[in-house]
């Protein structure tokens, strides 16, 4: 355009208008994911661990996938896990799903106030956990309990937390599912979104400052990447080359808002890493093998002091946001069926069957076994109380651990409370 033409346009501008992104479909419409570009399994290359981030920008716009439609593991990211490890992963995912199902019912029965499930997202935290080493630390959101399940944390303890009962490791102080276990590399979950992301970077920096070998993993949801602490995390991780894996779980929804509201004009969430020179991968989050392989790659980079990696897991939140939410108000009921990346458990099951190490029968049998185990755990947990019945943490516990040592004013208040 010439400068004259430019001036003409400038002097007679059209009125502006505000662009507000909308999902492709709303309740009543037909689910449509045709806009989600899904590359073939095996198509994305696996770069060297010390690759120059600027040369792999395209990985932020593709999807690393291992399991193909036929249940085969293909391509450069395949081949890291033994059959036993895969079967173990299968059990973890099934356990998490069963755990969720039982706790959802328990919540509906009034045994606790609140619950949040992982339906459809089980592969991510379960597979990631297996790529970590002892002593590594996760800074999770409320949707990564697979880290605990796959890490061997006691289900009874988890349930006691959910029930806020007399054996609740957190003494009833926290909302259900806000677990914490140092031993199991699971940082205390915050109700405030995104705060943990930058803390993970700090923990990783501390490990580097201390010449330790431990690395940190930060977790965040698609919607929460809009929060400011996401930025702080990327800035500090990029500047100090912190040994941290920056995970984004893109399950398409943030309560009622679709991922386009947080993502805006960038093609993907992984792209956010590009502005920081951080290698950024995008991974099929419903593919246990792909999640594990990408995690392994990123964890290895961190461990070798090569700095942070950002990983976007593409998945779908099949259930409601929480027990306080009803998704039918904002998205088609059948949208999850249309989700093109399938179900992580079914996909791994098919793979194991194709490999000849699993069968429908064995699957059913395992399902039954797991259900028994979970029910047994639940019975035990309930014997210690539920939110409104049986044993519970004391009012005295309420005053404890605000500080290491109780200061005089809290002592006075505890006395006043008569506890």
């Amino acid at each position, binding site marked *: 355009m010439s400068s004259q033409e430019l001036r003409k346009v400038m002097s007679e501008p059209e009125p502006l208008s505000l662009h507000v992104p909308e999902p492709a479909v709303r309740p009543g419409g037909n689910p449509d994911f045709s806009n989600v570009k899904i590359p073939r399994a095996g198509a994305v290359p696996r770069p060297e661990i010390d690759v120059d981030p600027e040369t792999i920008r395209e990985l932020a716009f593709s999807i690393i996938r291992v399991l193909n439609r036929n249940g085969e593991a293909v391509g450069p990211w395949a081949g890291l896990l033994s059959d036993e490890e895969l079967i173990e992963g299968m059990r973890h995912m099934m356990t998490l799903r069963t755990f969720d199902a039982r706790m959802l019912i328990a919540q509906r029965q009034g045994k606790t106030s609140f619950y949040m499930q992982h339906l459809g997202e089980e592969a991510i935290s379960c597979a990631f956990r297996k790529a970590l080493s002892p002593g590594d630390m996760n800074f999770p959101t409320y949707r990564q309990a697979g880290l605990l399940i796959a890490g061997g944390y006691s289900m009874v303890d988890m349930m006691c937390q959910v029930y806020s009962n007399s054996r609740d490791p957190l003494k009833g*102080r926290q909302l259900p599912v*806000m677990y914490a276990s140092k031993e199991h590399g699971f940082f205390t979950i915050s109700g405030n979104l995104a705060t943990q992301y930058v803390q993970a970077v700090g923990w990783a920096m501390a490990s580097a400052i201390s010449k330790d070998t431990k690395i940190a993993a930060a977790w965040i949801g698609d919607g*929460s990447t809009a929060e400011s602490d996401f930025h702080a995390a990327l800035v500090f991780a990029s500047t100090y080359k912190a040994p941290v894996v920056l995970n984004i779980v893109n399950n398409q929804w943030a309560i009622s*808002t679709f991922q386009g509201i947080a993502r805006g004009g960038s093609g993907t969430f992984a792209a956010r890493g590009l502005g920081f020179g951080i290698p950024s991968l995008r991974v099929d989050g419903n593919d246990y093998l792909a999640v594990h392989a990408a995690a392994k790659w990123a964890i290895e980079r961190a461990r070798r002091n090569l700095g942070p990696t950002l990983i976007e897991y593409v998945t779908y939140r099949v259930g409601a946001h929480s027990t306080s939410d009803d998704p039918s108000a904002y998205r088609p009921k059948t949208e999850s069926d249309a989700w093109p990346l399938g179900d992580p458990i079914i996909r791994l099951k098919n793979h194991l069957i194709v490999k000849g190490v699993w069968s429908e029968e064995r699957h059913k049998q395992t399902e039954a076994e797991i259900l028994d185990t979970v029910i047994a755990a639940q019975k035990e947990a309930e014997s210690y109380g539920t939110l409104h019945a049986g044993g519970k943490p004391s009012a005295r516990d309420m005053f404890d651990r605000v500080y290491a040592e109780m200061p005089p004013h809290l002592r006075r208040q505890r006395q006043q409370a008569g506890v």
Partner: protein
Amino acid sequence: MARMTMIEAIRDAMDVMMARDERVVVFGEDVGYFGGVFRCTAGLQQKYGKTRCFDTPISEAGIVGTAIGMASYGLRPCVEIQFADYMYPAYDQIVSEAARLRYRSNGEFTCPLVIRMPTGGGIFGGQTHSQSPEALFTHVAGLKTVVPSNPYDAKGLLISAIEDPDPVIFLEPKRLYNGPFDGHHDRPITPWSKHELGEVPSGHFVLPLGKASVVRTGSAVTVLAYGTMVYVAQAAATETGIDAEIIDLRTLIPLDLETIAASVRKTGRCVVVHEATLTSGFGAELAALVQESCFFHLEAPITRVTGWDTPYPHAQEWDYFPGPARVGRALVETVEA
């Protein structure tokens, strides 16, 4: 007049203002299509379109920061922070910016902005769905802080807030959304539809900011309360049989010190109740002011009944909540002191 819940009254206030004034825009997390997690904005997007009522990214700093920019342009944003517990990421924008634009620019730029947020506990929300951070706003010059306790007040005060030329923090006690709650958590609540304060005029009407309301007259002791605690105080007075005068402050800044002082001069005694933690809570300011202005009328120390100085616990919710028993004890002690 129609019977409304507090949610409906709040929605109605925004509806009335959006219809009257094109400059009023409403946004926040889950506020647009879905209508807010507490449904306060349900239907507004449908009625006024996506550019007047819309969903935002999950960024409280972004919500308030853009709202300040819009207000300085000339719009009148009324934004929602999903829970008061999540206002901290926006605190810099509120304190350093919204509160000071007019002052620092000598009026070149102003910030007519309302920030709505549900506050308070009593819903087993744990430490991040239960907070009452009003004292963090009342310390900041340039802000007004409002806490309605019923549908009628909520509508009248919210319309005043939206029409106010300065930034207003509008705190909505979520435990009151559906009916008055007096702290007896084991009893059913009366829904607003069965309560006279659920009676709300239709259309435009305002209640001025800065005027308290005496919700119970009495001569033995003055109780200063706001939000949920207004009903807890009433229950405590009834149950102890103490002739308490209960004042619903409605607006914390500007504060109706006149009404407060007149009452305390009459009763000679004062109990302050709030749900927020004790230390440096707004009750401290009330106690300080009351003793400053009524010292020679006071016959007993001013007592504060508040949440304890701990985070809001989940399982021990009712041990934390300053319920009618605790308030009652304070009334008795103060009257007997």
